[in-house]
């Protein structure tokens, strides 16, 4: 039965991918990309990877769809026709590149063990190590959180820095100089009474859910990445329905930029504190009197840093895009 569902979901994934390539209406493509994310999330749930599924649903289906929509409102809704003068449309080149990359990837999988094979390296030393020892060493129920935040703390630090860099990149490329000038533009959805009332009911719930995901990440699926994205989406909703000017009153540009850096700083400081106490960088055992307490504190603060940075960077990207759209003259 389960492999039947696998086949169905995978064929729906392939169909969605083909539709994304075929459809010329970029608005529909965005929606299809969201559906693709949601299907991937369902597939991850079937494979018992609940943390990954949660991330995919929040990031792939949720916030990236919103960000692409914001981009679309700047670039226009339809794909350019292939025969537009000055177009760089070279299907043969793209097809060759994709085929080559795909062939290399498939060639690469030849050396990998069969999925779920009992003698795969991951099953023989990494997984047993984490599953058997993390209860004694870290003592939190969600092993994924302990791997992500403690055993693989360096990698996660790298990921947070990547997100922070993305935020800086967006700011450097399209810095919103218009925020100084008074933007007296109407909210594009001002007249939508029902949407505004429902969103007013939902925004507090979304924020609370974001905090729940943040601080419950040690006990169930979740953690800083998902929480940051969910938290930021509440601000997106507010900005969409009540206008950027109103949203700017809630979210101070300078503060959000400072917060984005603060999250990374918090993460790094936890590592430095461990060094000051005589351990290695990000060795949480040295944070408190006994090892398990130190691990708990380290994971809590590290996840908080992740959450702060992710939420702030998402808000920065969204606001920078939207402000630029207003400055360039609202195309809708």
């Amino acid at each position: 039965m389960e492999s039947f569902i696998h086949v169905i979901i995978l064929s729906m994934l392939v169909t969605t991918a083909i539709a994304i390539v075929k459809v010329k209406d970029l608005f529909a493509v965005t929606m299809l990309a969201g559906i693709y994310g949601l299907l991937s999330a369902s597939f991850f749930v079937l494979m018992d990877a609940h943390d990954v599924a949660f991330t995919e649903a929040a990031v792939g289906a949720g916030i990236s769809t919103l960000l692409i929509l914001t981009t679309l409102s700047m670039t226009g809704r339809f794909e350019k026709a292939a025969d537009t003068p000055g177009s760089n449309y070279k299907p043969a080149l793209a097809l060759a590149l994709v085929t080559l990359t795909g062939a290399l990837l498939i060639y690469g999988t030849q050396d990998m063990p069969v999925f779920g094979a009992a003698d795969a390296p991951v099953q023989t030393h990494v997984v047993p190590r984490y599953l058997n020892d993390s209860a004694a060493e870290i003592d939190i129920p969600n092993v994924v959180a302990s791997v992500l935040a403690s055993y693989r703390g360096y990698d996660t630090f790298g990921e947070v820095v990547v997100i922070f860099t993305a935020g800086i990149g967006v700011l450097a490329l399209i810095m919103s100089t218009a925020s100084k000038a008074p933007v007296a533009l109407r909210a594009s959805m001002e007249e939508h009474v029902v949407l505004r009332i429902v969103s007013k009911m939902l925004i507090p719930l979304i924020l609370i859910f974001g905090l729940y995901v943040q601080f419950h990440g040690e006990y169930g699926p979740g953690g800083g990445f998902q929480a940051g994205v969910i938290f930021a989406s509440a601000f997106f909703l507010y900005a969409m329905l009540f206008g950027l000017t109103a949203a700017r009153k809630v979210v101070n540009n300078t503060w959000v930029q400072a917060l984005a850096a603060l999250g990374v700083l918090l993460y790094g400081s936890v590592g430095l504190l461990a060094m000051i106490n005589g351990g290695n960088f990000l060795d949480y055992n040295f944070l408190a009197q006994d090892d398990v307490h130190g691990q708990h504190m380290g994971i809590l603060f590290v996840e908080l840093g992740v959450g702060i940075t992710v939420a702030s960077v998402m808000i920065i990207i969204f606001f920078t895009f939207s402000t630029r759209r207003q400055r360039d003259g609202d195309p809708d």
Partner: protein
Amino acid sequence: MSMLTTYLSWASLVLGGFLCVSGSVGLLRFPDFFTRMHAASVTDTLATGMILVGLMFQAPTWIVFGKLFMILVFVLLTGPTAGHALAKAALHSGLKPLLPGKSGKIETDANPSTGGV
């Protein structure tokens, strides 16, 4: 679990499943955007709601019941709102409902945009 809750649970689940299927058929077969959207939002709200109610009857603890109830409230809030937003966007971009007695078929796949975000 008593017999009664089992029956009620399965009745809700089967009804929810039936509404899912009929909603999908309606989405494919109905003539214009607004009737199709009606089918889709019935699936969104009522079918999901019935399935959640069916699961609530089978909830082993009150915590599970409470979580399912909160999901139900969320679905009941967001489903109709999404339908409303879609219909409003369609009307806003000039799509008229298909009314009896009008000659000439209205394009049903106009795919209205919400007019930017």
